């Protein structure tokens, strides 16, 4: 073997080995276990075919988690991107404290989902209730996390608080990439602030919108940490005549199924999540290809 080939193999070895051991092999097992009766208690697992998958789409608890995750993702895409875009306009304006504001808006992204879940749980269950009681505001007197109808919206609001500063940075980079002369020319020609923003800025930032959209989509779809410490799935509600947890997103549903030792079922749910994400990725690749052709 040539010496340089040996060096190549040695250089690749650590990553390839860790990649195979931690991702490829568990992934293979993961697909297989989703078609077994693995329960985490006995050591063996017998092949059962597609039985686990067939059961999923008639189980109200899974259907609810799936639908609520799609709903949560949809409102996140709108809220996070609208807020981040507004923030990016603020921090690229001539506002005096723009750099200070930019630094501040980004801080929530540094706090992990676990920690910020507890912080917001405290704010929503204690601080806002205290304000509601002292000012006698009816709908604030009990926690907004305790109502099945509002809990997803509140989670989306917390998620917006966490992610907007990050997505804002992507928009800021896009805005700074637009030649200043273009905006000045439009201003000289008498275009107002809003028409400048929506007729020149937004179309020129199309790429940044695509990136942010898919980033928000995939992170919302996989949301776990904040869900776990903010609501832990609660409150209880009913769906298709079955008691279920109102804010149990897909990732948390998988976690709770596995905690109940129904490992194969959890694995099947995870495979469904995987397939959904693959579809999103394929759509993104196709979309980007199409756009490149247009350019």
């Amino acid at each position, binding site marked *: 073997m040539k010496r*340089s080939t040996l*060096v*190549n193999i040695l*250089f*690749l070895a*650590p*990553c390839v080995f*860790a*990649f195979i*051991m*931690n*991702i*490829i092999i*568990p*992934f293979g*097992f*993961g697909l297989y276990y989703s078609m077994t009766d693995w329960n985490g208690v006995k050591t063996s697992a017998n092949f059962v075919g597609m039985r686990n998958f067939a059961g999923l789409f008639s189980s109200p608890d899974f259907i609810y988690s799936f639908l609520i995750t799609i709903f949560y993702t949809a409102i996140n895409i709108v809220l996070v991107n609208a807020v981040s875009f*507004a*923030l990016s306009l*603020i921090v690229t304006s001539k*506002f005096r404290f723009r750099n200070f504001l930019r*630094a*501040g808006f*980004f*801080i929530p*992204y*540094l706090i*992990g989902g*676990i*920690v910020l879940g*507890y*912080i917001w749980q*405290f*704010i929503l269950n*204690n*601080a806002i*209730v205290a304000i509601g009681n002292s000012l006698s505001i009816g709908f604030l007197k009990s926690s907004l996390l305790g109502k099945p109808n509002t809990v997803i919206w509140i989670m989306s609001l917390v998620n917006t*608080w966490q992610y907007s*500063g*990050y997505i804002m*940075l*992507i928009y800021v*980079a896009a805005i700074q990439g637009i030649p200043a002369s273009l905006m000045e020319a439009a201003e000289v020609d008498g275009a107002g602030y809003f028409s400048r923003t929506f007729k020149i800025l937004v179309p020129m930032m199309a790429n940044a919108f695509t990136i942010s959209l898919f*980033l928000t989509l995939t992170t919302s779809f*996989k949301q*776990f940490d904040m869900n776990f*410490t903010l609501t832990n799935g609660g409150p209880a509600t009913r769906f298709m005549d079955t008691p279920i947890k109102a804010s149990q997103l897909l*990732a948390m549903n998988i*976690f709770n199924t*596995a905690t109940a030792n129904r490992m194969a079922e*959890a*694995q099947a*749910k*995870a*495979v469904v*999540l*995987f397939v959904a*994400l*693959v579809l999103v*990725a394929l759509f993104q690749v196709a979309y980007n290809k199409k756009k490149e052709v247009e350019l």
Partner: protein
Amino acid sequence: MSASNSFSASKLLKSLMIVLVMLIFAFFMVPFVMVVINSAKTSKEIIFNAIALPQSWGQLFTNIKLIFTNSTVDYIGAFWDSLVITFFSLLVIVVFSSMAAWVLVRNKTRWSALLFMAFVAAMVIPFQVLMYPLVRWMRVIGDSIGFKLLGTVPGIVFAYLGFGCPLSIFIFHGFIKNIPYELEESATIDGCSKSRTFFSIVFPLLKPIMVTVLILNGIWIWNDYLLPLLVLGSSGPVQTIPIAVTAFAGAYLKQWDLILTSTLIAMLPIIVLYLFAQRYIIKGMVEGAIK
């Protein structure tokens, strides 16, 4: 007359905008204020009034001491373990991913293209598909060859290398592609060995992109919950900060004085680091996101 009217109208609009911006900023900052003021209260004080300023700021140090000396959760130990795990994971990710990315860029064979594709495609796989088989697989390795991966620092660092290297290789790959090959070629002609060419010529050139890789992985690893929970367990000898915080919240249900103080201590290091290295962090995050 009309000119002065329009002037005051635009001035009014401007003041309104400033008020709006300040309100938005307040929404982003209020949670931190809530944590700080309530970390300086006793449990009773919080129940009595969660939004008032604390009676005495000295309580903050009493609460911090209560957490550091707590017998059920070894907070200082978790803090130290988090530091060690983050440090070594970042070290192996940066060194090994840059090595791999360099070989993948400079070898234009079918194999290297295929391998690169595999790394990129793997980024779509959600952790949920891998986590339970991974634990079972790690247990099998521990039982069969006696190398314990579960519950140990080397085990979780190895896992972070596996989960962190695809994105890191991708980022390094994009950067190395734009380094002129002539630089390495002249070194080789001068008799420099292949591995020395990498470590003394290419590696130093990677500094700017290394910051991006370090920050992206650093924020992820420091705050990560599920992987440490599964690999280290919620009550094993090695713990991390997020696990310690959940252990605290589980053990002292609704004792917000202790829970909030523990969250304050958990987020303090990363915020302090951010205040000092803000420019690099923001630049690194932007580059990581756009690629």
